[in-house]
Structures are given as structure tokens and as C-alpha cells.
């Protein structure tokens, strides 16, 4: 199993072997990575823990400081504390041995194994990284120096084009690649494994390139095609299939910590910070693989696609914008109360993912201190950080405790946006015109018929002056305040009163033409009420009950109905329809009869705000209320047709991408394009000197062109994707190899730094990389070169001799069988069932029970117990260079008992019945072909028949879905 084992102690004997060196002469440069690692892991912590308190930067008891190697060599009052190579002469050892005074540490003797560690360390030369102080102190800028060893590290050397080696077995190689592999095997006295059988190779290459099994028809076609070109044709077919991009995109998504959502539950997703448009990036990656976008361009798109011009001359370049989601779909906290921290974590995430994904470097180590192993200074880090602090991922910093807002960019250009704005305006105009037509029609209806009431008395509580005109309209002037009008009139006898109507009328003398007396011409009738006194002279005044109210126009939140209650805050008002006549109609309860000749007393309260009194009004009564549609004129029909068309056109929302653009985080410490200071120990609260935006100095050179304009991402992208960058092309070629063979030529695909394992076949890596660059960074050509090789064609069977010589298969003298990935297991089951939904792209489905390919099942950062996770899918919280393979009981429980699996067994049984209705043996054969690409042998067939006879096809289907042959490929 390929678990990561805990880093065990490096056998001390290894270090002991170095003691012949005249250690005092050893330059710090000369310590091996292993020695330095030993120091970091064991000696530094020990000295820090046991000694630094009294002999450190702050305190030097007895004049002794252990802060640096030099200070140890110099020693204190009792003389040098350290004689490299000579533990017995070193005061340090004498003290910890407790043989003589001073006995150190004074609190108690160290355990013997710790003393042994110190002794071994001194014996082997007292390795200590250059210019490093023990700790607790802060390093001062400029301390950093690149060592000779770092300068010589293989991964930092230019890519070579080595000669193809000669081999003895000249018949075996199918292409040059094979000669590199065979050469090493022959040197080790091994031969390659025999070729896999045709079906095994077909299954291998089909899964490898598409994540799906070959169909029985594809198996038959290949097995019967004995031509020379048969294999080549298969590879071409697979590379040209949509499934290729879907499968290889998933590899890439692992590396770039891709997630579809934060929250698994659609109902709990918070719109502002949810990564709703992440899927566009996934679809772009699928497409990029499928059309074989040159990998250097693939890189540039992801780092700085927003700055790329559109290749087709369009105003904007959607693919470029979408590709930068690479940066915005990152791992940082939501910030809660500490939003500034998100910004520094975002820059760190971006630096880390670019380092790991493209360069194979752990750049992020230099956030708090110079990189302990690789030639990357803290200044290099903040030179890069400035580039990302000058990039725009969040819309703004956001408020403490609140959610953050992801920056979203429209995927249509300024012209299209302007057109859209214009369409929106036209739609608004049309809607307004239609509404006005409706209003006028309504006004006409609501005021039709009936009889005006000529007031017999008008009273204003505020003392306004009322003038009644010939048309029964009353104009108010004079005192103006919150006012209540009381009006009296006699009900005419020609009419049965069912409605009371209040017309608000414009007049040139009123502000803005009225109908109200407020400065803007508005009014608010906060309460409208009435009572009547019948003409019999006996009955008291009776209040009139109103059951409904409507108006030709009602200001938002100021409906006529709200003037029927006592609340002075609301009421009927008409802004912005000022300077026009309006009417409100109040319907009287059906059980209220107002006899002709009654005296009507109407109260109009206007207590909403000062001045908001009616300027001119008329009361009337009516018996009926006509309702009809506005007249259907050609002009109106035109308007409606235009409105519908515009609504249709605007119904598709503006497509958005979580694109990154230039500019910092508005509202934050770094709101624009700027250089940033070193953050001491990585904290934005403790800032050091400012570093100009630039590329890492050792890797990119001392003489860099200054970043003159913008964030600097295009400059960074150009350097990363340069054929002269010794890392980038090697890293992707090695990744592709890793994905084909299960192990890379460098077995740490995301780390080519000093702590990585050097390549097993350095010449092959360089040869492939050179061809890759020559081929225009074409991944498809690289795949072809690899899968058409004899190396790839080897069987997975291993001879005892080969196993003994090369148990880890570092010489690649056989093919390593492997378990299918979570996605492929599920996709295989769906495909075999005939249930796989071929739909491509778009937002991810909610859970694994959908029928689309697993690529389209959501990966959520906050949900780690999904189906995919159970089968070791990548954790989107970090860049994943390789999948682990775990084999645990919950997987068995899922396959045995999950309703989805039972459903699939049923679908599979049904499909088998459809495919082969009659013959049981044939049907069983079909099952084997669909799942395993082969026919059952006689024994298997006999047993399967018996199972079907007793347990049915469902049981047979279920057992086959649980079998090892389904999920392990040769």
C-alpha cells in the first residue's frame, strides 16, 4: 500500500560514516541535505528546548550563546563549546555528560539518546545551515545566501537533450523512450516484463486515457484487428474522445485543489462567498485538454488569462477570464472577524498552488522565514506576494463578522453590456408606457358615472382655506400642517350609494402642479372615513364601513387600502405621478344602506407628515364600478410584443466568472496595485521593509525587468511557462508519466526541491521534456509517445528475480497494477448498466446518485464523507499530487448495502435481460464482457448459472459489482 510512512529517524550510522572528514574544515556549504535535515529535526529543537533560554539571543549565561555555529565555536567564559568532529573535546558534551562542572542542563541530565544525538552531530561535523541563527530571533533581510549545493541541484539546471542510449536487446524498443528504460534494466541485469495480452492493454489504455472501460464492441474490434496500426488507431480514438478531457481534467483538478462548492447542502450555500461559477473553470480545463491547448498557454491562461487579448479579436476573452478561477477557487477561511487575514492567506494560497502545480516548489515555506532547504528567500516570497496583493479576488474586504464577496466578472464585453443596459432601459420605458396606459384607463373607469358631491360644509382643522368650484372641486390654500379635512354633503336621491370616491386633482397653483400641497406635489391620506345621518331626523350619525379600496395609482408602500386603518405612518399617496389627476375608490360594505337625502360626513386625515395634505379634491358617489381591459390598440399590441421580446432576450442572466483581475482588495490594507512589505513571521500586523514586485531572484535571475504596469501576473506567467524555466516543463512531463504509470520518474511530483527524490531516469525525463517543448507543449503527443511504447505495453506480472532486484519497480521493468479511482469505479458501473448520462459540462450535480460522470458530481470543501472521499478522492483543501489507495470496511459496507448500489445491480440485471433476452449462458457472458472485457470460463459460467437459478439476476449483478476484477486494472 502506498501510505505515506512517518519519517523515521535517519540511521545514525549514515552520519557516522562522515566522521573521517576533517570536520573543522567543513564549510557550511558542504553539509549534505541529510545532515542539515538531521540538524533541523533533532539538534535545533533540542538546543532550543534545553539550552536557548540561558544561552540564547536574550541571555548568555557564562558568556556562552548557542545562537549560531560561530558563537558555539567561539564559546563562552570556559572556552569553545564545540570542536566539530571531536565530541570528547567539546565542552558541550562534557557538560551534558554531567561528568564535571558545569553540568548542563542544570534541571536534570538529558536522556542518553539525546546525548548520543549531540555526540553524533558533533562527530559528523556539527552541521548547521548557513546564516541561520538558532531561533527565537528574527532573521534580518540580507542574511539569505544561495549555497553551492543549491546552485548545483539537478532541477535547477537547464534541460538537456541527451543522446538515446544504445541497448543490447534491439528488438524490444518500440520507440526511443524504451531505450532509456531498457538501458537501465539491462545495466541492472534485468529484462522487461513480457507484453500484456491485447485485452489487458486495451483495458489499461482505455481507463488510462478516458477513465472508462472499453465496451465489449471495442474489445471485439481491437482483438480482431490484427493490423500494425490497430493500437495506434485505438490511442487516436481515445485521445479524440470527449471522455479523454473529462478524465485528464480530473487529474489536473486534484493538483489545483478544485472544489465545486464550499457547502455541500444547496440550501445552506451563501450566495456572496459561494464559489458558484467554479464549474466554468472545470469545463474550460476539460476543453483545454480535449483541444490540446499547448500546456505553456494553459499555464499563462490560469495565472494571467484576464490580461490576454481575445485570439479572435473580440472585446473580451471569456476563456482567459474563466481560467483565472485557478486563483480564486482557493483555500482560505471565511475570515469571520479577521478579514485582513483572508487577504494574506489568499496571496499565500496562490503562491503555494503556483509553486506546487507548475514549478514543483514549496514557495509558501518562505512566508515566515527563508526557505529552509530551497533557494527561496522571504524577500522572494513577498516579491511574489505583491503580485497577488495587487490582484482582485474579493469584491471588497468585507465587514468583520460578515461574509466575504467573491469578485465576479461578466463574460460579455462592454458592447454587449451596453446593449443589454440599453435593452433594459427600453424595457423599463415600455413597461412605464404600458403602466401609464393602464392607469389612464383605470382612472377613466374609476371616475366614470356616479355623482359629484357638492359640499355643504368644508372644515380644515389646521385652518386652511377651502374654495369650492363649480365642478364641486375644493381647492385648499393658506395654513399648511398635518391636517384633517371634514366635509359634509347631501347624498343625491338619484343613486344607490355603493362607492365613495376621492379624486385628487392637479392645479397650476399647487406645488409641482399638485394634487398635494407638499413641496413635491404629493400628499398622504393617512385615514379616510365617513358617516351618514339619514334624513328622517331621528337616527344618530352612523359610521360607514368600507371593505375595500383601490386607486388608479398607488405609490409604493402607500396603497389606498392603508388609508382605511388608524396608522398615521401609511396611507394613500401618488409620487411620482405628480401633476396628474388621481382617484381612490372606497367600497361600502354590502349591509350598509345609505338612504337618499342622507347627510354624509367625510373625514380625510393627513397625519403622515407636515404639508402632506391634499391641495385639490372632489368627492363623488357611485353605484357601480366598471372593470374592463384597456382597449386593444395596434400601438398597445406593439408595445406588448416589444416588451415580451425584450424580456425574453434579457431572461438569460449575464454569464459570470469568478475571474481574477488587476487591483488589490478594496477596503483592505492593500487596496490597489502596490508592492508589499515583508510580513514578519507571516503576520500582516508586523510589517518589515517593502519588497518590489518581482520573481524569485535565484530562479529567475538577478537582472529582471521591473514590473512597470499592473499586478505583474503576466510577467510571472511568462517566466513560469518559459521553455527556459528548468522546472515547469519537467514538472508536467513527470506528472503525466506519474498518471500513466502510477509513479513519476520523480516520485514527488509536486516537489522538485532539495528534499525531493531525484529522478530515477534523469536522461529520459530531459529527453521527454525536450521533445514535449519541441512538440509545442502538446500533451496529446506526450501521451502518444508514452502509451505506444513497449514500456507501457509490459505486463504487470513480475518474475521473482525482477522483484528481488527492484521491489519498488523504480526501473519500470513491469506495469504496476492499480485500483481504479473513485470516479472510474462509479463511471464503470454506470456505463456497464447503460445508465451513464453523456451530458457534458455545467454546474455539478448534488450527489453521487445522479447519472452523469463523476466529474460532474459536486466536490464540496465542507463535506468530507462523500462517496468519492470514501474511495480516496482528492481533498480540495490542498493541492494533491497523488491519490492514496485505502481499503477499508466502510467501502465494503457501501458496495454491499447502499441503496444506490442495489439500484445499479437492478439496472445491470435489466440491461442484461434487454441485451440477451433468451440464453442464460450468453447473458452471463455479456455481463463478464461489460464489466471485465472478457468471457467467463466454464467453471465461472456454471456457478453463475446456479446463482441465477437460486438468487436471480440481481444477486449475480451485485456480486459482480463487488468483485476485485472490476476495480483493479492490470
Amino acid at each position, binding site marked *: *500500500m502506498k501510505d*505515506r*510512512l*512517518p*519519517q523515521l529517524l535517519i540511521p545514525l550510522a549514515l552520519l557516522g560514516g562522515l566522521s573521517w572528514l576533517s570536520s573543522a574544515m567543513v564549510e557550511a556549504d558542504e553539509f549534505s541535505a541529510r545532515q542539515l535535515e538531521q540538524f533541523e*529535526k*533533532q539538534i535545533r529543537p533540542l538546543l532550543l*528546548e534545553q539550552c536557548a533560554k540561558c544561552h540564547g539571543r536574550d541571555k548568555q549565561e557564562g558568556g556562552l550563546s548557542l545562537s549560531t555555529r560561530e558563537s558555539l565555536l567561539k564559546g563562552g567564559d570556559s572556552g569553545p563549546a564545540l570542536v566539530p568532529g571531536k565530541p570528547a573535546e567539546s565542552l558541550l558534551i562534557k557538560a551534558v555528560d554531567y561528568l564535571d562542572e558545569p553540568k548542563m542542563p542544570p534541571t536534570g541530565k538529558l536522556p542518553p539518546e539525546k546525548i548520543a544525538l549531540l555526540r553524533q552531530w558533533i562527530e559528523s561535523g556539527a552541521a548547521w545551515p548557513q546564516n541561520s541563527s538558532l531561533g527565537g530571533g528574527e532573521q534580518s533581510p540580507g542574511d539569505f545566501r544561495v549555497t553551492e549545493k543549491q546552485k548545483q541541484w539537478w532541477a535547477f539546471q537547464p534541460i538537456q537533450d541527451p543522446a538515446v542510449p544504445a541497448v543490447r536487446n534491439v528488438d524490444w524498443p518500440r520507440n526511443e523512450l524504451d531505450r532509456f528504460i531498457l538501458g537501465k534494466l539491462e545495466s541492472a541485469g534485468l529484462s522487461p516484463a513480457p507484453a500484456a495480452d491485447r485485452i489487458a492493454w486495451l483495458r489499461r489504455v482505455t481507463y488510462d486515457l478516458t477513465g472508462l472501460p472499453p465496451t465489449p464492441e471495442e474489445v471485439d474490434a481491437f482483438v480482431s484487428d490484427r493490423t500494425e496500426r490497430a493500437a495506434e488507431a485505438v490511442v487516436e480514438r481515445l485521445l479524440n474522445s470527449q471522455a479523454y478531457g473529462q478524465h485528464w481534467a480530473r487529474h489536473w483538478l486534484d493538483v489545483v485543489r478544485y472544489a465545486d462548492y464550499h457547502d455541500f447542502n444547496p440550501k445552506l450555500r451563501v450566495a456572496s462567498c459561494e464559489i458558484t461559477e467554479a464549474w466554468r473553470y472545470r469545463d474550460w480545463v476539460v476543453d483545454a485538454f480535449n483541444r490540446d491547448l499547448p500546456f505553456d498557454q494553459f499555464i499563462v491562461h490560469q495565472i494571467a488569462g484576464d490580461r490576454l487579448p481575445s485570439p479572435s479579436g473580440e472585446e473580451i476573452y471569456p476563456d482567459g477570464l474563466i481560467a483565472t478561477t485557478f486563483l480564486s477557487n482557493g*483555500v482560505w*477561511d471565511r475570515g469571520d472577524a*479577521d478579514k*485582513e*487575514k483572508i487577504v494574506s492567506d489568499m496571496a499565500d494560497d496562490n503562491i503555494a498552488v503556483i509553486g*506546487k502545480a507548475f514549478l514543483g516548489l*514549496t514557495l509558501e515555506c518562505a512566508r515566515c522565514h527563508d526557505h529552509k*532547504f530551497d533557494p527561496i528567500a522571504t524577500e522572494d516570497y513577498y516579491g511574489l506576494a505583491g503580485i497577488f496583493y495587487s490582484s482582485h479576488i474579493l469584491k471588497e474586504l468585507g465587514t*468583520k463578522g460578515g461574509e466575504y464577496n467573491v469578485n465576479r466578472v461578466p463574460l460579455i464585453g462592454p458592447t454587449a453590456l451596453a446593449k443589454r443596459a440599453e435593452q433594459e432601459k427600453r424595457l423599463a420605458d415600455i413597461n412605464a408606457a404600458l403602466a401609464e396606459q393602464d392607469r389612464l384607463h383605470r382612472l377613466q373607469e374609476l371616475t366614470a358615472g356616479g355623482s359629484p358631491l357638492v359640499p355643504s360644509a368644508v372644515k380644515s382643522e389646521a385652518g386652511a382655506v377651502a374654495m369650492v368650484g363649480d365642478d364641486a372641486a375644493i381647492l385648499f390654500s393658506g395654513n399648511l400642517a398635518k391636517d384633517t379635512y371634514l366635509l359634509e354633503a347631501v347624498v343625491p336621491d338619484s343613486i344607490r350609494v355603493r362607492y365613495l370616491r376621492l379624486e385628487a386633482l392637479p392645479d397650476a397653483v399647487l406645488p409641482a402642479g399638485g394634487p398635494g400641497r407638499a413641496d413635491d406635489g404629493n400628499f398622504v391620506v393617512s385615514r379616510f372615513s365617513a358617516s351618514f345621518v339619514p334624513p328622517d331626523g331621528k337616527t344618530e350619525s352612523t359610521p360607514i364601513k368600507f371593505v375595500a379600496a383601490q386607486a388608479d395609482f398607488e405609490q409604493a408602500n402607500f396603497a389606498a387600502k392603508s388609508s382605511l386603518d388608524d396608522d398615521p405612518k401609511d396611507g394613500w399617496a401618488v409620487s411620482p405621478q405628480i401633476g396628474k389627476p388621481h382617484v381612490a375608490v372606497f367600497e361600502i360594505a354590502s349591509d350598509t344602506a345609505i338612504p337618499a337625502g342622507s347627510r354624509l360626513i367625510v373625514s380625510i386625515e393627513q397625519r403622515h407628515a407636515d404639508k402632506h395634505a391634499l391641495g385639490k379634491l372632489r368627492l363623488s358617489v357611485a353605484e357601480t364600478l366598471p372593470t374592463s381591459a384597456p382597449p386593444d390598440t395596434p400601438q398597445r399590441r406593439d408595445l406588448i410584443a416589444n416588451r415580451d421580446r425584450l424580456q425574453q432576450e434579457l431572461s438569460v442572466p449575464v454569464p459570470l466568472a469568478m475571474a481574477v483581475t488587476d487591483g488589490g482588495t478594496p477596503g483592505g490594507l492593500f487596496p490597489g496595485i502596490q508592492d508589499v512589505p515583508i510580513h514578519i513571521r507571516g503576520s500582516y*500586523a508586523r510589517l518589515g521593509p517593502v519588497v518590489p514586485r518581482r520573481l524569485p531572484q535565484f530562479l529567475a535571475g538577478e537582472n529582471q525587468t521591473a514590473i512597470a504596469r499592473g499586478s505583474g501576473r503576466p510577467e510571472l506567467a511568462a517566466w513560469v511557462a518559459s521553455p527556459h524555466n528548468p522546472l515547469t516543463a519537467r514538472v508536467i512531463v513527470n506528472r503525466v508519466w506519474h498518471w500513466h504509470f502510477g509513479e513519476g520518474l520523480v516520485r514527488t511530483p509536486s*516537489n522538485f526541491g532539495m528534499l525531493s527524490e531525484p529522478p530515477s531516469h534523469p536522461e529520459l525525463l530531459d529527453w521527454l521534456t525536450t521533445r514535449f517543448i519541441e512538440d509545442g507543449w502538446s500533451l496529446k503527443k506526450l501521451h502518444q509517445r508514452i502509451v505506444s511504447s513497449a514500456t507501457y505495453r509490459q505486463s504487470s*506480472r*513480475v518474475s521473482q528475480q525482477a*522483484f528481488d532486484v527492484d521491489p519498488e519497480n523504480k526501473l519500470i521493468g513491469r506495469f504496476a*497494477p492499480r485500483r481504479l479511482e473513485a470516479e472510474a469505479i462509479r463511471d464503470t458501473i454506470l456505463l456497464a448498466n447503460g445508465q451513464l448520462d453523456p451530458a457534458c459540462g455545467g454546474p455539478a450535480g448534488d450527489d453521487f446518485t445522479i447519472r452523469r460522470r463523476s466529474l460532474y458530481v459536486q466536490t464540496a470543501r*465542507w*463535506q*468530507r*464523507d462523500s462517496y468519492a*472521499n*470514501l474511495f*480516496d478522492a482528492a*481533498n480540495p*483543501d*490542498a*493541492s494533491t499530487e497523488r491519490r492514496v489507495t*485505502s*481499503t*477499508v*470496511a*466502510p467501502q465494503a*459496507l457501501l458496495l*454491499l*448495502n447502499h*441503496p444506490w448500489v*442495489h439500484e445499479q*445491480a437492478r439496472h445491470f440485471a435489466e440491461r442484461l435481460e434487454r441485451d440477451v433476452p433468451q440464453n442464460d449462458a450468453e447473458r452471463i457472458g455479456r455481463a463478464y464482457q461489460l464489466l471485465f472485457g472478457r468471457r467467463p470460463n466454464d467453471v*465461472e459460467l456454471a*456457478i453463475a448459472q*446456479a*446463482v441465477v*437459478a*437460486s438468487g*436471480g439476476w440481481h*444477486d449475480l449483478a*451485485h*456480486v*459482480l459489482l*463487488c*468483485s476485485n476484477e472490476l476495480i*483493479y486494472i*492490470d
Partner: protein
Amino acid sequence: MQDSISTRRQLLLQSGGGFALLALSQLLERDSTVRGAEGSQYARGFPVQHHPPRVKRIIQLFMTGGASPMDTYDYKPELERLHGQMLGPKEKPEGFTSPAGAIMKSPFSFAQHGQSGRWVSSVFPEQAKLVDEMAFLMAMTTKTNVHGPGTYMMNSGFLLPGFPCMGAWISYAMGNLTDDLPTFVVLPDSRGLPYNQKGCFSSGFLPPVHEGIVIDATAKPPIPDLFPSDRFAFASRSADHDGLELLARINQQYAEAHRGDDRLDARIASYELAAKMQLSAPPAFDLSQESELTHSSYGLAQPETADFGRRCLLARRLIERGVRFVQVWSGPQGAVNNWDNHGNIEKELPPMAVSVDRPIAALLRDLKARGLDQDTLVIWSTEFGRTPFAQGSVGRDHNGGSFVTWLWGAGIKPGVAHGQSDDWGYQAVENKTWCYDLHATVLHLLGIDHTQLSVRQDGIDRRLTDVHGHVVKEILA
């Protein structure tokens, strides 16, 4: 154990375990070589052992939201004297959600308890009786005043997501004590998950098998897919021997052709484990097997203590059966029902305190009565403390400066307190401890040197304690 397979077959048949499972148990019966689950990651964990362990299993009680120290275990008479005075920082410190108000005394009375004379406020009357058995870290401190990062830090030692939590590290380093149950179980508050949701229980870059298994204590079955749903019970009951042979044959033929690939055996073994879990898990979760006295001592009958009490009792049953690490959470994330008492300490804290006090005391007494205290460690913890200044007028804001953790059980020096906060309980001043020190101490008790337990991730040797951590020897027996 001879009974196991035939009994298992019977049980599986009765429980509708399904044909395939039956097939597998048959297969396993025939193939004695896979006994012991060789190769399965549950069984295989490489016990990392640097020195003899004192502790074999752990229950961690986590108070979500930042339990107030000066209202529980960190008595500060100075706050009474200065009550109402504006002495706090003038500027709003980073991560505070609002400016600091006046100094606020605790609304609760404090008294000394036990031989050790430990001060405990009136909110914890039951735990107060047990202070002589606990060891207190009185000056814990953290890097953040923010819930999400704070909760990550207390669990994984890092402020960011993506790192394995302590339970995952322990599962990775120590492996399991039993094949029948998961190694690391999380029992969240029934009202919801804590801050960071499942990020707190993540295995990070360790294999996913080490991730905390979240178990809803009230769900049936508590472990996902333990049995097929009734809908499919029709399937397979009548299966006979031929079917078993088919699967056996399929897998065996395949394994024979791939000698030396232990993954194939591991997969077969994983099916055996699944079968074992089907038998062992349901009884482990069946609280009806406990006496009435036990139910009442954990407060299962009272609504205020029932949820936490049930999970404490479940925690005991699980570690008793060999689960290595159980985390019991008090409170979900969010504005209510947790220890994030911004608004009103006097009103918001007591219901939380009541909900855990009696169950915790019952758990400790129960563990002791069963002798489990000999190899079990209990940790009471939270992500940070709260301000000695009022927020609003009667609440308290987040404060990473100082907070309290206690440990109980095997390897612990009972009745001690290590570290001290300042007179207000605002900042840790003496013998300050970080999550690194707590984690180093816990690993030490498990027999692990925290500096030696590392995994190389992208070229960095990652540790639970990052580059920090000191074993707090002062609280160890």
C-alpha cells in the same frame, strides 16, 4: 471466537444482510489466511511508540464558541474591585467583534473546592467536586480571536484548513484497538456541527481512513450503510452455496494471478471487517443496555442534559469497546446554543454549563468505577477565552489571550494547576501553554515523541505540533 462465523451468518440472514455479505463471510470461512485483516489500514496502523504509553484511549470534550474562563475556572477577584471601570484597550483589538467595554466581574459566585482548593464558579457544581482529580492548564493561549481558525488551531495546530486533526494523527500513529469499530469517532452536538464543519475532523493529507467518523448519536443505523435498506431486503435471502463460490472464485482467481499484491487481500479483509462491524456496531450504540442508574446519573431523562449526556455515555461505551479517540462537542457553530456568549453571560452561559456539568461528572465517575481511568485520558477544551471587559453591557467578546483546559485520567498528576493569567484573566502571563504543548503532552502520554511523528507532504515534514510544542511535564504523574 470459533462461534463467530456461523453465528454471524445466522445474524446476517436474520438482519437481511444481503447475499453478497453472506457470500463473503462464507468466502472468509474457507480462506483462513486472511484472518486478522492483514493489510487493512484499520488493522495495520504502525503503532508508533517512542516510549511506554500511559494512555491508550482518549475522550475530548470540546466547548464550541470560547468558554469563558473568568466565569468558570479562572477566579479573578480583581474584576470585582474594578467592575464598571473603562480600563480596556481603547482601539478595538484585531478579531474583537466590537470595542471593549467596561471591566465586568463574573455574575457567578466562586468557591474553593477539594483538597487542592481550586476555585470554581457556581455554574459547575458537579465538576467542582472532582477538581482534585483534574490537572488544569490555566494559561492556554492561541494565535487568533476568530472562531474558524481558532477551532482549526485547537484541533490541527494550524489556522488554515487542510491539516490533519489530532484524532487523525493518533489514528495514523497508533492504529486501532479493535477491528470492529472505527478508530476515531466524532459525536457532534445534535443541533449542528461546530465551526469549520467537518474540517475540524479532517485527516488532511493523511489517508482518508484516519478522518473522524461523524456519528449522529440518534440515527439508526449510526454507521452509514451498515445494513441494506428494507427496500432491498428482498434481494438475496435465498442465496445458496453456488453464489458464494462464484464470488470466492472470481476474487481468488484474480488474486492468484496477482500474487504479491496485498491490496487484493486487504480488500477481502475489508469485507470481513464490514461483517464484523455489522455485528459489533449496533450493540455499541444501544444505550438501553445501560442501567437506569447510569441513565439518570448522566442526566438522560432531563431535556437539558439528555443530548450531551447521551453522547458522553456513548463515548464511554465506544472507548470501552476499543475506539481510540472520541470527540464530544458541546454546541454547534452560530449565534445560539453554544459557548460564544457575546450578549449576556449571566443568561447565556448557565444553560450551556448545565447541559455539560452533570454528564461530564458522571462520565469521569463512570470511567473510574470501571477502571478505565487507568488508560483513558479525558480532555476538556475550547477554542479561546473571553474578555474581562463587557461586550455591550453584560456579554463578553472573544479573547485568545488566555483560557482554561483541563485533563483527567491516566498519566495525569491530579489536583494540579499549571500557568496563570493576569489579574483580569485577559492575557496568559505565567507558564503559558499553546495548543502545541497540549498536543505534545497528549502524544507523550500515548508514548509518542511529538517531534518524531511527521509525514512528508510536498517536501515538508509536517507535524501535529508544527515546529513548536513542549510536553507539559508539570501536569504529568
